[in-house]
């Protein structure tokens, strides 16, 4: 029991699950075989998550506090504040168990699966962040767990694979296609389509068919619920701006949710600009992951949303220096809020993100995830446009990224990289 218990657990807005539509976005574009599972999940979501049946939400709150380490602090960033002459506050999701915001959702869903009487957890993972969070949650709740992961990703992310395995999860290599996240998603859908009656598929961001985008957002909305009361306690007021990096958008919507109805709070979703914002149609590659900034409407992985596609509707391969942002789609709710001008989509390129990584490490003693670093890249470039008080979500810690950060830093001529010659040849 952390001292968090003294904070009232208000829970998500106990309204409706909604119909899964955010304007025209969202929906449930999935094979018929999965429909009943989604309806069952929607029902469970309404009963347990929204209406706290059998004390689900209370149990979730207690577990995410005691096992996960909530509430996470909102820290005044002295050195950045001085640098920018702006009050910069950091929401420290990097301190959550597992090292990123991911656990909020993974724990919520695994617990929900338990309430639903499911016997088995499946999930897919690309870089391994969602996979490790799910494996931890499954171990904590004593649920068998299988994680699908592309064969190529498995070789690139061995430490995360190892973490999942020692947490007792089975990591199932996916050998079809190019052996990356896309194929792992297909394979997990396939497993789920075969085993829906006993398995729950833990989707890792606010993407996929209804009710996933809404439900995943509710689990992560603890972030903005806490920020709201923390910043008010500290400054007596709401912030002028809130920044969060956006891949699928789970930490983004988690950070924004409780501010959406406050028009005075600007919301910035910082995407990965990669090496360029253009799409190479010939190669089927977009060297970025900026689907909010540059994507077009389409249907991917069960939802209508903004995505990176070529002129014919084939999904292109996205790219980012941060593997956790490297996804061609984005949550439908976020796509909608961008269309409504409520959320401002912005992006910074790989170089700016790496400089953000080094800046936060050197000046604040916090090594951020490369995903998170994008938000700090944006802050550096636009600090004079964000008002007097800005909250940045530190969505994860960078320990998982040390090797990548080294390699990418060595290849570039960054303004603020430390001397790295000792590390020639990798970590």
């Amino acid at each position: 029991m952390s001292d968090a218990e003294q904070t009232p657990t208000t829970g998500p807005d106990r309204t409706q699950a909604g119909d899964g539509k955010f304007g025209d976005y969202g929906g449930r574009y999935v094979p018929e075989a999965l429909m009943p599972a989604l309806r069952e999940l929607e029902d469970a979501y309404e009963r347990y998550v929204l209406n706290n049946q059998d004390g689900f939400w209370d149990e979730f709150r207690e577990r995410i506090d005691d096992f996960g380490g909530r509430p996470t602090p909102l820290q005044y960033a002295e050195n950045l504040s001085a640098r920018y002459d702006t009050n910069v506050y950091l929401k420290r999701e990097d301190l959550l168990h597992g090292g990123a915001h991911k656990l909020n959702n993974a724990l919520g869903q695994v617990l929900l699966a338990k309430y639903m009487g499911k016997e088995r957890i499946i999930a897919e993972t690309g870089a391994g962040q969602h996979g490790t969070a799910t494996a931890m949650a499954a171990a904590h709740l004593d649920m068998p767990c299988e994680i699908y992961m592309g064969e190529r990703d498995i070789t690139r992310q061995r430490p995360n694979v190892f973490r999942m395995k020692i947490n007792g999860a089975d990591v199932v290599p996916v050998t079809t296609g190019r052996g990356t996240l896309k194929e792992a998603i297909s394979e997990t859908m396939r497993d789920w389509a075969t085993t829906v009656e006993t398995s729950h598929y833990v989707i890792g961001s606010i993407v996929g068919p209804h009710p996933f985008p809404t439900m995943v957002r509710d689990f992560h909305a603890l972030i903005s619920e806490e920020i709201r009361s923390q910043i008010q306690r500290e400054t007596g007021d709401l912030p002028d701006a809130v920044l969060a990096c956006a891949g699928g958008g789970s930490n983004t919507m988690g950070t924004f949710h409780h501010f959406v109805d406050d028009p005075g709070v600007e919301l910035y979703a910082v995407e990965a600009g990669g090496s360029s914002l253009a799409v190479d149609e010939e190669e089927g590659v977009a060297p970025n992951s900026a689907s909010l900034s540059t994507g077009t409407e389409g249907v991917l992985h069960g939802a209508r949303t903004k995505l990176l596609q070529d002129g014919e509707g084939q999904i292109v391969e996205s790219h980012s220096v941060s593997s956790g942002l490297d996804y061609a789609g984005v949550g439908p709710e976020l796509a909608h809020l961008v269309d409504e001008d409520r959320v401002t989509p912005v992006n910074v390129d790989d170089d700016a993100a790496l400089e953000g990584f080094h800046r936060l490490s050197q000046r604040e003693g916090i090594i951020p995830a490369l995903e998170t670093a994008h938000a700090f890249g944006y802050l550096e470039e636009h600090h004079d446009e964000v008002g007097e008080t800005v909250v940045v979500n530190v969505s994860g810690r960078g320990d998982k990224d040390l090797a990548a950060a080294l390699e990418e830093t060595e290849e570039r001529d960054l303004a603020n990289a430390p001397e790295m010659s000792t590390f020639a040849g990798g970590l």
Partner: protein
Amino acid sequence: MSRLRDAVDGGSAFVPYLAVGDPSYDESLRYVESLAAGGADAIELGLPFSEPIAEGPTIQEAIVRALDAGMTPERFFEFVEDLDVDVPLVCMTYYNLLYQYGELDDGEQRPRPFVERAAEAGLSGFVVPDLPAEEAAPLRAACDEFDMDLVSIVAPTTEDERLERLVDVSSGYLYVQARLGVTGTDVEAADRTAESLDRLAAYDVPKAVGFGIDSGEKAADVIEAGADGIIVGSALVDIVAEGHEQDRDTEAVADDIRSLASELKSGARRGHERRVPRAEGQ
């Protein structure tokens, strides 16, 4: 009038599937024509999409080969036009490709441009596994306009109250999934088939059963259990894959395809014969 309904309504229809452009445009043309030669009553032509979430590994790999060989929606329509077969053709693909195709005229709604082009190319209908009935109205409207069918997939898990909606929105035939899961041949084909068909008996629409059928015997069993037709994909794609990997002669592969097609078709007939006397005996 529905060409698809007519094609499947005979009681022992054989509806094979191949991914178009696998492993190349020309080979694929030959293979699809062999299906017709082997006795197909209608053919499902897979238009490759980069994220085929409803497919098993066999068809997923076929789609990757076809994409790598340059298949696109436009090439797909040319393919249909180049084809020399006289059975109805169904386009099987994912909604995003329908949705993105072509330019919209004033007041026009997606996916009308795709449907218009498909009709012009000579296709008779669509199967879109990731398009739920709830979102199917615009496609349905365009199908009606161009006299095309929209085939719905019914899963073993589909609840009864949902069946009505699926039947409502669809035409041509119902694609009845024999078992849970995705396309593939690893599980006993007649699983739950009888049960599923029972639930559908009240609906006056032909039912073609797919998923897991890979031999004349299984085909016979499924038809005997009450299906109006069988849908076979992975077993045929396997022949294409093996031919490609072993660099076999196109004609030899086409022969094998035709011969499996014939086996499946006669299995279906056999099943029909087995069922009809029994039906008469009741």
